[in-house]
């Protein structure tokens, strides 16, 4: 028994309501039900505005927050969501959410994710929104399904609904001992009468009653990952499928002047396609496609764009192009009066997500309908891009996103989807396009580079009196200071990025925290205060204070920060973003120009913990991934040509980089669960920079943090 049925009111009176919009972009509800087989369908969509004139729109009821739960005649429970799984654990978490409400173990729930014909549009899988938005939507949908099951059982047993109990996929009448499993209950009552909109006030299980959520739950589908059975987007194979490649310019901004498409004939059975600016080839094997591409690219003549910047002058370029100029400090008078002042500029390089699976898509045309399998965090966005590229309606494009090999914010635009579709259209056969690592490093987008100016002043007591913080180019995430400062302004100013830039795990929050937490350290030194005490003295946020306290205790900050050793330093940083809070301590070892992170202790809190197993993986993954941009990762380019587009030259973290890791997860059952796959990354780089200062007295204000002079740090 996992839910107390007496606490819930079964749904009623809404069985005839149709959802606001057709699910799955045009598939009718009837067809939808047929596809799943007869069963109970509950649509979690806000009612059309007209049907609920007085109900206030709570929590962003845009009509897009939708999830669906299906209970089959055979008792199978299926949850449909537009969210994707790329290793971050959404599949497992959403299964837990539905299982909790339906009184079954998590592995009884299957998910259909990110299939635009079959799942609702739950938006982009980004910004840690799955936990705070989609989990509640699925819980409410499952809770509504549960209430309908209770009603069905009450009718069947001819008892009051309050007497029905649900346990392990069965409804029970405790008085008579009669039982009926969910499949039996819906079997007789399939289809129309049971399609109901989720009532706004449906009761979900309280955190303290959780039996499935909040428990360590192994990853859904994990067996297929260790056997190789799972098919990632790049593994999809269709009958008669060809392998495709797109021609790339030699440098950013270069335009194709001429090319000999006939040269593709050098490769057996190859086909070459030119369609506007797109040039590509397809052939029965990848090798033949590579040869064909090589042959035509030798004949290509290009016109290069004038004066593209190089990474060496990137920061000057960004500053020069700050939109409206870099704003002046509005607290200049305050600063002039300050007892101690800090004026500093911090730089953060472009970095690449480098997911293990590069961009890939298989496209197939059938009777004018296009189906694309691809790895993207934005399945409905990808469908829209295909619709406009080919002038098709929503019912003519289907995007399916198999669980894919990593995103980290880097696959909002899948890119390969349109390339594959163009080639497949010309070839009249399905085509797979899988990007190479060099393409991924060069033509996918980067985390934005940043130039950040900080000016701050302290009074004679060491209290911050003014703060002016300007982020040029990288973004406004976590730009606001969590510290109490009488006069404070933090701003983001866009610039003209010379390279393609986009999202990334926690986006600008990393750059902003690097600058802010480094500056706070510098100010603590100026104030003659311990960095921990200095932060605490300026903090009100109790959750942030709690993670700081935890990390300081577990790391033994007081004792370790008191030691002076030029080869060993400790540093501290904290921050908050997307509703969660994090604090980290790092210990670094220094030998000449060599910087090694030896120990990282991090405390993290993201509300009520949904899946401790996955949370731990996410936090550890964030810390280790964060080591890369902190220590080494940096896209280097010269006049629009990327210089380090390989894993040899672009040093992502490896086993040898793994420090001693010490992670403390604080559970806050009273706080709504929020996402956890991003924020744990933001404290690591500043903690390292501060540790370097602690050991050496050198303040390094650039990420990657390098001891050697520019260009010598690898």
């Amino acid at each position, binding site marked *: 028994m996992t839910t107390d049925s007496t606490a819930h009111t079964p749904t009623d009176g809404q069985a005839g309501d149709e959802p606001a919009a057709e699910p799955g972009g045009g598939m009718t509800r009837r067809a939808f039900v047929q596809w799943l087989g007869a069963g109970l369908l509950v649509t979690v969509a806000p009612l059309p505005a007209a049907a609920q004139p007085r109900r206030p729109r709570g929590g962003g009821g845009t009509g897009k927050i939708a999830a669906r739960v299906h209970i089959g005649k055979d008792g199978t429970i299926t949850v449909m969501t537009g969210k994707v799984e*790329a*290793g*971050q*654990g959404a599949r497992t978490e959403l299964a837990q959410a539905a299982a909790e409400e339906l009184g079954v173990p998590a592995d009884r729930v299957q998910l259909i994710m990110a299939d635009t014909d079959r799942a609702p549009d739950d938006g982009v899988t980004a910004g840690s929104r799955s936990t705070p938005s989609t989990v509640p939507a699925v819980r409410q949908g499952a809770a509504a399904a549960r209430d309908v099951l209770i009603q069905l059982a009450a009718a069947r047993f001819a008892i009051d609904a309050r007497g029905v109990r649900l346990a392990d996929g069965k409804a029970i009448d405790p008085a008579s001992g009669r039982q009926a499993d969910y499949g039996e209950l819906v079997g007789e009552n399939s289809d129309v009468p049971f399609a109901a909109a989720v009532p706004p006030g449906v009761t979900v299980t309280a955190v303290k009653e959780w039996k499935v959520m909040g428990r360590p739950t*192994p*990853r859904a589908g*994990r*067996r*297929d*990952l*260790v*056997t*190789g*059975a*799972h*098919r*990632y987007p*790049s*593994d999809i*194979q269709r009958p008669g499928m060809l*392998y495709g490649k797109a021609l790339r310019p030699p440098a950013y901004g270069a335009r194709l002047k001429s090319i000999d498409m006939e040269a593709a004939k050098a490769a057996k059975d190859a086909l070459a396609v030119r369609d506007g600016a797109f040039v590509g080839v397809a052939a029965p*094997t*990848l*090798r033949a496609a590579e040869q064909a591409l090589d042959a035509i690219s030798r004949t290509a003549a290009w016109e290069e764009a004038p004066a593209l910047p190089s990474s060496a002058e990137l920061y000057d370029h960004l500053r020069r192009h700050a939109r409206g100029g870099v704003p002046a400090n509005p607290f200049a008078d305050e600063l002039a009066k300050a007892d101690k002042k800090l004026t500093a500029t911090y730089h953060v390089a472009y970095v690449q*997500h*480098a*997911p*293990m*699976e*590069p961009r890939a898509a298989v496209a197939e045309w059938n009777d004018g309908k296009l189906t694309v399998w691809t790895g993207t965090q934005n399945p409905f966005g990808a469908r829209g891009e295909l619709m406009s590229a080919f002038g098709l309606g929503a019912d003519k494009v289907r995007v399916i996103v198999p*669980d*894919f*090999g*990593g995103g*980290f914010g880097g696959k909002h635009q899948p890119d390969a989807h349109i390339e594959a579709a163009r080639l497949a259209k010309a070839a009249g056969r399905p085509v797979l396009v*899988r990007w*190479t*690592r060099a393409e991924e490093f060069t033509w996918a987008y980067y985390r934005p580079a940043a130039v950040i100016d900080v000016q701050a002043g302290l009074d004679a007591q060491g209290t911050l009196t003014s703060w002016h913080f300007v982020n040029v180019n990288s973004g406004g995430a976590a730009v606001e200071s969590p510290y109490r400062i009488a006069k404070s302004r933090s701003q983001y100013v866009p610039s003209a990025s010379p390279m393609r830039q986009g999202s990334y795990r926690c986006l600008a929050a990393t750059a902003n925290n690097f600058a802010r937490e480094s500056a706070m350290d510098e100010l603590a030194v100026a104030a003659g205060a311990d960095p921990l005490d200095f932060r605490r003295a300026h903090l009100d946020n109790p959750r942030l204070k709690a993670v700081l306290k935890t990390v300081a205790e577990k790391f033994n900050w007081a004792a370790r920060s008191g030691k002076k050793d030029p080869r060993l330093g400790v540093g501290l940083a904290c921050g908050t973003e997307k509703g969660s809070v994090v604090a980290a301590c790092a210990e670094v070892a220094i030998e000449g120009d060599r910087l090694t992170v030896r120990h990282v202790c991090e405390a993290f809190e993201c509300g009520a913990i949904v899946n401790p*197993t996955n949370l731990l*993986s996410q936090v*550890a*993954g*964030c*810390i*280790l*991934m964060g080591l890369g941009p902190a220590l080494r990762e940096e896209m280097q380019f010269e006049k629009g040509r990327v210089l380090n587009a*390989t*894993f*040899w030259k672009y040093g*992502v*973290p*490896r*086993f*040898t980089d*793994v420090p001693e*890791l010490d992670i403390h997860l604080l559970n806050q059952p009273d706080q709504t669960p929020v996402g956890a796959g991003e924020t744990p990354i933001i404290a690591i780089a500043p903690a390292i920079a501060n540790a370097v200062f602690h050991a050496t007295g050198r303040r390094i204000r650039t990420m990657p943090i390098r001891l050697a002079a520019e260009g010598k740090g690898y």
Partner: protein
Amino acid sequence: MDATILLTVNGKQRKVTTDPQRPLLDVLREEFQLTGAKFGCGEGRCGACTVLVNGQAVHSCLTPIANVQGKSVVTIEGLATGEKLHPVQEAFLAEEASQCGYCTPGMVLATVGLLARTPQPTDEQIVAALDGHLCRCCGYTNILKAVRRAAQPAGRG
């Protein structure tokens, strides 16, 4: 000029007529539909494409098909015996060593290769054997735990 190559894949005799320089990875994936070996870089720097050739872990992305003439190749699909997983696969499951799982086949096969040579590796030996393998989900700590677990004789858990 195409050549005909004979090899054993997961215990079965296979024959392929193709460009002898074509990478083993492409042949496994495209001709034999064995997509368990992954493309990660094509440059020998990520380990996603790792398979066993005569028991040794190799990068199939850099191995021309002609080089495995007459040899025995084992891919991730060939590791389990029916429904029974290989102990290394079991260890990866037990330690939650996969996030997206794209690196997992390569990691598992590299571990099988390592334990065949060194049944009781030290942590240094494990790191040395796996350092050519990337996990961008950065699940390195759980992967290390899985390798240690797999290295322990049953019952010493």
